[in-house]
């Protein structure tokens, strides 16, 4: 007999133990997310409840307001929501074509060595901490913006502006978008490419009509991740946003204010309502991200129906 009954029993027990162990880990990590959201919710909702110790805030005027001034006790985030949406979407708009074409080059066109080198550069870019992007933006991008504005005869606030935020975010989401696109393009079945080439399509036609079409679902997933990063980026954005007190900001050379920069600026030097209201802003940010992801996922399903990756 090859089968040792004792051993079978032990293996079964071990199986049971590990199943429980992994489940405990999964519950632990997912409960963190729940705890965080619950905490932010509790803290963020409190200013709008009657009997709030620093004086109840009106929810409607908070959500629709167009002035945010701690010194006057005016807290309106309506314009900040719009600012956040604008900066993130324009950043995505700039970054998306650049990333997809870069990914196509790395995945399909570049010679092997160059492709490997470029891919590690992209991965490296993804690993750069956001504060480093921030100092780069405040040192370089603001200078470029200032110079650009001077061409139109506009004086900026030292280069801090909506444009600087958009450019910064476009650079920051580039690695995410690119590496997701590379993965998606590389996952396209080589049989499809062969079929296309065998039909007399050129390399370029094959790359655009087959590789990109088949990979669009994965590329779009990258865009969703990138947009999430653009919404959520705080440190670097706060360094070049300028934190305008009212808005929304549509002029690219004017300073702006995003949800994240609002939460971050002066967090440690404040107490009372001004401190608590940041949790409300955080709650708004969570809801904004949740909704835009939900909408994008619907779009993704629609465009991804014929996709394989």
């Amino acid at each position, binding site marked *: 007999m090859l089968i040792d009954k004792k051993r079978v029993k032990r293996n079964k027990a071990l199986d049971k133990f590990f199943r429980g162990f992994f489940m405990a880990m999964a519950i632990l990590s997912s409960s963190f997310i729940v705890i965080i959201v619950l905490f932010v919710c509790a803290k963020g909702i409190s200013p709008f409840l009657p009997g709030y110790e620093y004086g109840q805030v009106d929810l409607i005027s908070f959500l629709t307001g167009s002035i945010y001034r701690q010194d006057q006790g005016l807290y309106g985030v309506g314009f900040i929501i719009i600012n956040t949406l604008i900066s993130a979407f324009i950043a995505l708009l700039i970054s998306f074509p650049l990333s997809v074409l870069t990914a196509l080059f790395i995945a399909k066109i570049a010679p092997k060595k160059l492709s490997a080198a470029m891919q590690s550069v992209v991965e490296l870019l993804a690993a750069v901490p956001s504060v480093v992007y921030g100092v780069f933006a405040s040192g370089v991008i603001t200078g470029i913006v200032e110079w650009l504005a001077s061409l139109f005869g506009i004086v900026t606030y030292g280069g801090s502006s909506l444009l600087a935020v958009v450019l910064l975010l476009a650079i920051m989401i580039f690695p995410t978008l690119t590496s997701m696109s590379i993965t998606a393009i590389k996952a396209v*079945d080589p*049989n*499809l490419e*062969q*079929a*296309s*080439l*065998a*039909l*007399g*399509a*050129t390399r370029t*036609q094959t790359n655009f*009509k*087959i590789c990109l*079409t*088949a990979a669009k679902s994965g590329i779009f997933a990258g865009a969703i991740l990138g947009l999430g990063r653009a919404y959520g980026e705080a440190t670097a954005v706060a360094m070049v946003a300028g934190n305008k007190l009212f808005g929304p900001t549509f002029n690219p050379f004017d300073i702006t204010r995003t949800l994240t920069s609002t939460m971050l600026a002066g967090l440690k030097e404040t107490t009372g309502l001004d401190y608590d209201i940041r949790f409300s802003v955080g709650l708004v940010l969570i809801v904004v991200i949740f909704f835009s992801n939900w909408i994008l996922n619907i779009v993704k399903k629609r465009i991804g*129906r*014929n*996709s*394989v990756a």
Partner: protein
Amino acid sequence: METCFDVKNIDLFYGEKQALKNVNMEIYKNCVTAFIGPSGCGKSTFIRCLNRMNDLIEGCKVEGEIIKDGLDIYSPKQDIVDLRTRVGMVFQKPNPFPMSIYDNIAYGPRCQGLKDKKKLDEIVMTSLKQVALYDEVHDRLGESAIGLSGGQQQRLCIARCIAMSPEVILMDEPTSALDPISTSKIEDLCLELKKDYTIVIVTHNMQQAARISDYTAFFLMGEVVEMDKTDTIFSHPSDKRTENYITGRFG
């Protein structure tokens, strides 16, 4: 009978490894020519020489000549895109593009710059009719081709190939991933299509070669052991190795 391909002294190397050794043959127009042989004998490698799909493999080197219409297809004068529009290919695994049925068939002509909707409609319809798929899918041309069954997908791939009105259709084990019913449909199709096209087919299945082909070539270890009329190959093979293979003594 008119010659479609005149193959002269083809040697093919994957890096250092020689995969084809001195292959010589003539492939005739409007005939079905079958390549048989055990796995790894070079039959798939050879069929891919005929539309230069081997160009895509890194380190693959071809020596010798394949004359088509008076021009060596491996000469620098040969335009690859032009060659591939005239020599179409159907692959082992059905590989429809992730688009609608209509777009799949219109893909080739569109790549050549055809935009006229009426002409495209006509090409799609006639191609589907030729592979007997039209009745099955005519009411859902706008739906994804991925939703078709395996046999339907393979017929779609043949239709996609026909849409280019090629002279030759190369088929690399087109039925190995299909069930018997779909297989017999494709076989009937081959017999139908040879009126208009020259067909070259690689098959693992000797009965299939016997059923549908006019000429058969037996490959073994990168060489063509014997090539003749299919009847002759299966009834009076001149080489002992061919006889051993078709009687099932190895392979």
